[in-house]
C-alpha cells in the first residue's frame, strides 16, 4: 500500500449512498467490475468518471457510503483510480468494505476541503496537507486489525498471509 497519496479533490455532500455510487440499475454488471466502474458515482455526478484523474480523492460529508452492503461500491471507486475517500463520517459497512478491498478511508473535518483542492495525504503519519489552501490536518489512526488489513492491500491478502485474524 502506497503511503503518500497525492491528487485533486472531488467534493460530494452528506449521505452519499451505495445506490448513488453503484446504482441498482447496473446490478447485472456486478460480475464485470471494470464495466461497473464506468458508472462510479454516476447518480451523484453523471460526469464524475470523465472528470477524474488517477490518484484523485473523493471527499464526502457525513455518513458516506450508507445503505446496501454491496462491496462493489468501494471496489469501483478504487478501480476508477481514486486513491482514498475522506469524509466526516462513514457508514459502518462501507468503511469496513473499503479497508477489505484496500481503499483507504479517512475520517476528518471535510468542511474546509473543496473540489479542485490539491491534497497530499500521508497514511502512516495521519496527516493531510491541503496544498491549495495551505492548511494541514491530522486524522486518527485505524484500529490495528484494520491497519494491518489495509497494509496488505485488503482482506484476501491478509488472510493469505496470516491464515486467521490476529488481534
Amino acid at each position: 500500500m502506497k503511503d503518500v497519496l497525492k491528487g485533486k479533490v472531488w467534493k460530494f455532500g452528506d449521505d452519499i449512498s451505495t445506490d448513488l455510487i453503484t446504482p441498482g440499475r447496473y446490478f447485472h454488471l456486478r460480475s464485470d467490475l471494470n464495466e461497473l466502474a464506468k458508472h462510479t458515482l454516476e447518480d451523484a455526478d453523471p460526469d464524475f468518471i470523465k472528470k477524474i484523474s488517477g490518484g484523485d480523492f473523493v471527499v464526502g460529508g457525513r455518513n458516506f457510503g450508507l445503505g446496501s452492503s454491496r462491496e462493489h461500491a468501494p471496489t469501483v471507486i478504487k478501480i476508477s483510480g481514486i486513491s482514498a475517500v475522506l469524509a466526516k463520517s462513514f457508514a459502518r459497512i462501507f468503511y469496513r468494505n473499503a479497508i477489505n478491498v484496500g481503499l483507504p478511508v479517512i475520517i476528518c473535518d471535510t468542511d474546509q476541503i473543496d473540489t479542485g483542492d490539491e491534497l497530499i495525504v500521508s497514511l502512516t503519519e495521519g496527516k493531510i496537507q491541503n496544498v491549495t489552501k495551505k492548511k494541514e490536518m491530522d486524522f486518527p489512526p485505524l484500529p490495528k486489525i484494520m491497519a494491518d488489513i489495509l497494509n496488505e492491500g485488503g482482506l484476501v491478502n491478509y488472510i493469505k498471509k496470516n491464515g486467521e485474524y490476529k488481534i
Partner: protein
Amino acid sequence: MLGHTLAEKILSEKSGQEAKAGTITVVDVDWILMQDGTGPLAVKQIEKLGIVKAARPDHTIIFLDHASPSPRKELSNDHKLLRDFSQKTGCLISEIGKGVSHQIMAEKYINPGEVLVGADSHTCTGGALAVFATGMGSTDIGMAIVSGKTWFRVPESFKIISKGKKLPKGVYAKDIILYLIGLIGADGATYKALEFTGDFFKELPVEDRLTISNMTVEAGAKAGLFPSDRHTRAFLEKYGRKEKYQEIHADKDAIYEKEVQIDIEGLKPVISRPHTVDNTVFIDELKPVTRVDQVFIGTCTNGRIEDLRIVARIFKGKKIDKRVRCLITPASVDVFQKAAEEGLIEIFIRSGATVLPPGCGACVGVHQGILADGEVCLATQNRNFKGRMGNPDSHIYLASPATAAYSALTGKISDVREIL
C-alpha cells in the same frame, strides 16, 4: 463487575472471553448468508485463496432473492455461479421464488444467543430473535464462510425505551421505526447496537420486532436487538423449533451510551420522504397532496402474513385507484402459501393488485416495478434513496402496509385513520 448489554452478552459467549464495548474480538459465527447481488463476489474472493470450501456448509445459506427470477443473462450466469458453488461446497441454496433471506432466516434457522453475519445490510433483521445479526461485505462473508469466524469491534449500545402500552389506531411497528430513525437521524446510531426495551416492546410479537430490527441499519446501527422472551418462544414454537429457545437479556446494570424514549401512545402514521429514510413526517403534516403512481407492498421489512392481512382488510370489496399500479410481493413462499389459503390473494386480485413471486421484488431496482421518470412510489420497503428503485429521476416514499394499502385506494398518500 459491570453488567453487560445484550450485544456484549452474546459476543462474550461466542468469543469465550469478556467482550466489552470498544474491544476487538474474534467470534465463531453460527450462521452465514449471502445473496445473488453479493454472493458472486464473495465466491470470487474465496477462490483467490486457492481453496473452495466452507467451514460449516449446512450453516451457510445462499439466497437467490434479489433478481428472482432472473431478468437478464448476466444475472442468470451469477445464479449459475452460486448454484455451482453450492454444489461444490455443500452450502445450502434457497432458490428463486422461495423468498427474501431475512424472512427465511427467521422462519427456519436462527435462534436466541446466536451470531449471524450476512452479505446484505438488512441482516440486522435477526436481532428480533435476540441474535447478534449484522451485515457485511462480500469479502468479509467469503472469509467467514472459509474460516467459520469473523472479527467484531464490540459495539456500544443505545437503550431504546418504549413509554406507554398501546399503539394508537392506524399506527404500526413500521411507524415506530420510521419515527425513531427520523428522531436520531440516518447516522444517529452508526457503529452502535440498538437494544429495545420497555412495556410495549416486551409485549410486541416477533413479527413486528422483525420490522423494527430490519430498519435499524437505516440509523447506521450494527445491530437492532430484542431480548428473548415468551414471544420469542412462541415464534420458535410456531416454526417447529421451540427446543432452541433460551432466555437472553441485558443485565440490569448494563452500561448504555445513550437512552432514547419513544412515546408509543403519542405516535401517528409516519411517512419517510425522498431521498433519505430520516426525512420523516407525521402523515397529517405531509404537504402538499402527493399523488402516487405505484404502491409497493412487501420486502423483508413488511412482506409478512400479518402485513398482508392488514392490506387485505383494507382492500376487501374495494378497487385500487385506476391510475395506481399496486404490486404485492410476499416475503417468503411460506407467507405466499398462507396468504393463498386465507383467501388474501383473491382479495388482492379482485381489488386490482398485481401479486409477484416471493423475493426482494421492486425494492432493489433490478426488475418487477422500475419507475418511470418523475414517478412517485409509496413503498413498505426500508429505503428511499435516490435511484433505489432503478430510476434516479423518481421519488420514493416509505410507510406502513396500512398507509400503503389505503393510499393505493385513494391514489394519493393518505391517512389510514380516516377509515379505521
